[in-house]
């Protein structure tokens, strides 16, 4: 019976233009007429046929049958159903007939018919026009593993053109077949293999349910093999996922620390207010978004690109101000600079708290920052992806400035030998001021990125300052590559320790390891060599 339907369906697909419509209607009437009977067994078979027919009205007809709204004209066995308003609709054409039909007999329903109806309606969406809906239906079957949908699945698998949807269908069928005790052994073995290829947690649970009690030896072996494969794959996946999170955390650390690396590297001072520069950048983003929200809502997706240069300028200016008014009087006294900048950080925090309040401020995510990219079970959030790319871009740009510009050349000269650089005519105070502004500006840019993943509050900077120091010290002073390596390895180590030891304990272990590492190599991974070391 089904085969005949397929042939008809295939023909329908082959035919073109107006011919399609005509033959389609003919076919529809033929199929529908099978419901126009008093025999329950016939109705049951008819339901499956209608469900598999792909008729536009099929769902409406079956729903009407379930609600006892379906009737047929005894004269020509034409089907009609009542719509919500109570008027009759011709099931074959899915339109209101010219005149209200008469001599109608209701199609009767018993429990067996009702069960068949439920299965049919459940599998109906398997034939939806939208591929996404078909996939969703397949996943629903995968979860429910309803044996009654098997016939419908077989039929849709045979005619599905879309490879992705077909894969989902086959996985759903495999899920049903695997635990169907009376299914042929070869089918069940194939199902186990199929689920092994799917390889997610659900498949693993299904395969775990196969045992000698409900399957033959061959099936059990196949299931065990597939489960093993999945476990291995999932372990690999979680490693990749951890690596991804680690990379993401590492890029955040990189963004937060890279400005510090410059100021620390060039001037040998610790800027405790560095975290507050990051915070200023985040608040700049907030202000930009607020203005855009009220003045030009259409530009919202552009808020971050607009905020980046502004945040750079705000933080760089504040940095320049700090350097000119405080730090320049403290050169050569690094510990005093540390205390003075700590004072600056306290004042900046309080200033922001007075201006914006102590509560967290809401910074929205533009459309391209939200959403997830599912790569075969490996989830990539766009926000993280952008931050990683952004972190690397900032790193490359900064490297370019240091290697390729005149300011960079002078900066490197001052790092290597301040007095010799001064003797060669480099105005070291100017280089210091510009370097400090540059480092602060980069921190501001970091704030734009961090506003997307962290709470924008006056304490934002505080939570990053210790980590940033550790990154800089770990990587080695005055070396951007060291900072990159330090940030990434700290990020990765953190995320790989987390599942083993827990978030807090992992962090403590990491701190202990870094403290020990600094004892071994007091100048970091990439230490400056030569005279610059002892100053």
């Amino acid at each position, binding site marked *: 019976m089904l085969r005949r339907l397929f042939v008809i369906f295939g023909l329908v697909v082959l035919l073109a233009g107006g011919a399609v419509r005509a033959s389609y209607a003919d076919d529809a009437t033929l199929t529908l007429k099978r419901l126009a009977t008093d025999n329950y067994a016939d109705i049951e078979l008819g339901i499956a046929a209608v469900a598999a027919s792909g008729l536009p009205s099929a769902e409406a007809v079956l729903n009407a049958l379930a609600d006892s709204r379906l009737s047929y004209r005894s004269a020509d066995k034409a089907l009609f159903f009542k719509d919500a308003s109570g008027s009759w609709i011709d099931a074959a054409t899915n339109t209101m007939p010219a005149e209200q039909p008469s001599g109608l007999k209701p199609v009767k329903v018993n429990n067996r018919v009702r069960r068949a109806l439920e299965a049919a309606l459940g599998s109906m969406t398997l034939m939806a026009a939208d591929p996404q809906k078909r996939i969703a239906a397949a996943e629903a079957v995968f979860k429910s593993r309803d044996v009654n949908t098997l016939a419908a699945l077989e039929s849709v698998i045979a005619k599905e053109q879309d490879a992705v949807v077909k894969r989902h269908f086959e996985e759903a069928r495999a899920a049903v077949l695997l635990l169907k005790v009376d299914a042929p052994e070869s089918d069940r073995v194939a199902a186990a293999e199929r689920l092994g290829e799917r390889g997610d947690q659900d498949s693993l649970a299904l395969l775990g349910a196969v045992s000698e009690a409900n399957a033959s030896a061959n099936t059990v072996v196949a299931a065990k093999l597939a489960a093993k494969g999945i476990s291995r794959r999932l372990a690999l996946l979680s490693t990749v996922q951890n690596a991804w999170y680690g990379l993401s955390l590492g890029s955040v650390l990189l963004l937060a620390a890279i400005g510090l690396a410059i100021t620390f590297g060039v001037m040998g001072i610790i800027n405790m207010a560095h975290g507050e520069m990051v915070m200023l950048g985040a608040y700049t983003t907030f202000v930009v978004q607020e203005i855009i929200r009220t003045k030009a809502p259409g530009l919202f997706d552009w808020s971050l690109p607009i905020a980046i240069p502004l945040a750079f300028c705000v933080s760089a200016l504040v940095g320049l101000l700090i350097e000119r008014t405080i730090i320049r009087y403290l050169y050569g006294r690094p510990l005093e600079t540390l205390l003075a900048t700590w004072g600056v950080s306290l004042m900046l925090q309080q200033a922001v708290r007075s201006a914006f309040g102590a509560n967290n401020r809401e910074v929205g995510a533009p459309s391209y920052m939200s959403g997830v990219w599912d790569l075969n079970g490996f989830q990539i959030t766009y926000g993280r992806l952008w931050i990683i790319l952004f972190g690397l871009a900032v790193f490359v740009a900064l490297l370019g400035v240091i290697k390729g510009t005149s300011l960079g050349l002078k900066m490197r000269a001052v790092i290597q030998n301040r007095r010799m650089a001064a003797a060669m005519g480099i105005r070291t105070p100017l280089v210091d001021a510009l370097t400090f502004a540059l480092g602060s500006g980069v921190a501001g840019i970091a704030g734009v990125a961090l506003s997307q993943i962290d709470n924008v509050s006056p304490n934002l900077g505080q939570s990053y300052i210790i980590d940033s120091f550790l990154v800089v*010290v770990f990587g080695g002073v005055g070396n951007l590559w060291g900072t990159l390596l330090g940030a990434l390895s700290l990020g990765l180590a953190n995320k790989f320790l987390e599942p083993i030891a827990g978030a807090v304990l992992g962090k403590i272990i990491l701190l202990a390891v870094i403290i020990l590492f600094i004892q071994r190599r007091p100048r970091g991974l990439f230490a400056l060599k030569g005279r610059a070391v002892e100053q």
Partner: protein
Amino acid sequence: MITFFIRHFDRTAIGFVTTLLLIAVVVPLLNLAVPESSAFHIPTYLVSLWGKYLAYALLALALDLVWGYCGILSLGHGAFFALGGYAMGMYLMRQIGARGVYADPVLPDFMVFLNWKELPITWYFFDHIGYTLLMIVLVPSVIAFVFGWFAFRSRVTGVYLSIITQSLTYALLLAFFRNDMGFGGNNGLTDFKYIIGFPVQAASTRATLFALTALFLALGFLLARAMVVSRFGQILASIRDAESRTRFLGYRVEHYKVLVFVVSAAMAGIAGALYVPQVGIINPSEFSPSNSIEAVIWVAVGGRGTLVGAAIGAVLVNFAKTWLTGSFPELWLYGLGALFILVTLFLPKGIVGSLAVVVQRMKGGSAA
């Protein structure tokens, strides 16, 4: 011994010790013996408040010993303070005994609440005051020794040392926040009732604690003073001013540094232990790096390398903090921040150090 002190004590030092001994006697008397109606009566809350300041002063003294005389800027001295405080807190918790909310004779309330059945090993013997006193000194000392041994032997100096001391206290902060550590987690230890059998809240106990704090501050000062005026202190100063040169002269720099670091940590621990019963609570926030940095500014304000100045700075800054946070809460952080900046820019020797310079100049002027 006595001649040593007399020979090496200038008038400031003698004045400082005498003042401390005086207030250790007078303040409790004014609190307990003078009737409340009298204008000279000191209310109990003020006694505890000033007791707290004096405990901070002892911490500042400890910090000045390492920073002012040996150039070790520790941004983690709050950790030693808090460790001493926790040791005392554990004793006070076990003193509660069956008087707690859950009335468990052995387990403190928070352990009953967490459904623990046995006392963790770390809490054994903390019902004995002798053991507690030992731990108050020993725990910070041992941690300082291990940390200092590794750090100073590998010649971690300057800002690097500051950063890792900061990481040390940060790691301890995170650790003490954990409930499984068994130190009360987030809430810390509080609700103390008795100390060596005396009720903690009673005015007489508070007055005694105040007197003890003043006494220990005086003792700590004498010890620190003895260290810095001796040959040992001269080597410390030479390490501070030219570490490499001192090493090349044949001194084992790291030994000196470790010793002074351990002594300082022990002093900080004692300060913490005196602080806790007077404040009535100890929780992980005492480990926060900002607390340790704040302690550094007390020393800077008073004058590093003067000892007396450190103690005075601690009292002054904390007095200002109490007053400002009470009257103008908005202004406190501005004030503290400005203090950090102004002191480092314009008063690098601190109040006492600058005064000493002024006095010196006046003397020189009159002589000429």
